[in-house]
């Protein structure tokens, strides 16, 4: 983005990157009609996962990210599943899925524990006691090994979708 001024830099983190194994986790996975506890490894056992951490549902970056991912439909012509994660509740996820007209499921992690384990915590200025994941994208294979990683370095920041597309092409 060129705004004519510097946007806020985010602190560097020690998040996992290409070649690392991501921590497995279990959280409620929400679809347009139900939610249930599912682990990342359970999903990945089927096919590679594009795991997308995003700001709380309703924030404009989440809207932009999901519109773009929905339109690019990486899962349509690749052996891949696209899955989101935010701190929003399952009820909010159902609304998000409905409003964005997307066919992807989203993990609900209100206590932000997954972001803590991935070292991608974004403590939100002006919202005391609330933290959420930094926007981030991890493409992981069946063994949860990262094939591609992107983590926001400024606020706001958006995935490089063409780069994600290249990574997806290579699996």
């Amino acid at each position, binding site marked *: 983005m060129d705004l004519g001024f510097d946007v806020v830099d985010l602190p560097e983190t020690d998040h996992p990157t290409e070649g690392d194994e991501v921590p497995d986790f*279990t959280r*409620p996975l929400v679809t347009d*009609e*139900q*939610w*249930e*506890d*599912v*682990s990342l490894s*359970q999903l990945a056992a089927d096919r590679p996962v594009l795991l997308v951490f995003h700001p709380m549902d309703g924030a404009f970056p989440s809207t932009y990210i999901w519109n773009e991912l929905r339109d690019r439909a990486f899962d349509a012509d690749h052996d891949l599943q696209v899955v989101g994660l935010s701190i929003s509740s*399952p009820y909010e996820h*159902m609304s998000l899925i409905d409003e964005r007209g997307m066919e992807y499921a989203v993990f609900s992690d209100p206590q932000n524990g997954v972001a803590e384990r991935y070292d991608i915590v974004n403590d939100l200025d002006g919202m005391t006691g609330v933290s959420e994941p930094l926007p981030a994208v991890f493409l992981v294979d069946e063994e949860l090994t990262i094939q591609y990683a992107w983590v926001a370095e400024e606020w706001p920041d958006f995935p490089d979708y063409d780069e994600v597309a290249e990574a997806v092409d290579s699996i």
Partner: protein
Amino acid sequence: MSEATEETAPITLYRLQACPFCERVVRKLDEYDLDYHSRFVEPMHSDRDVVKRVSGSRTVPAIVDDETGVTMSESANIVEYLDKAYGGDN
């Protein structure tokens, strides 16, 4: 018990958060120490198509017991079924 995953638990419970009829079934599942996997559904009755596809009705609770092949709605029926299938007397 609610930690069980879809793969490991023979019983799937379709439930609504804070629904007393669903909690009644949970209490019975816990009483018999049964592994079950929870699927939470929409509060809005008319949106619960996932339950209707499984049980023929949009009501919760509903259970699917892969062990016995039983699918059932209505908490009183479910409790009675669990007593018969898993109670100590048989």
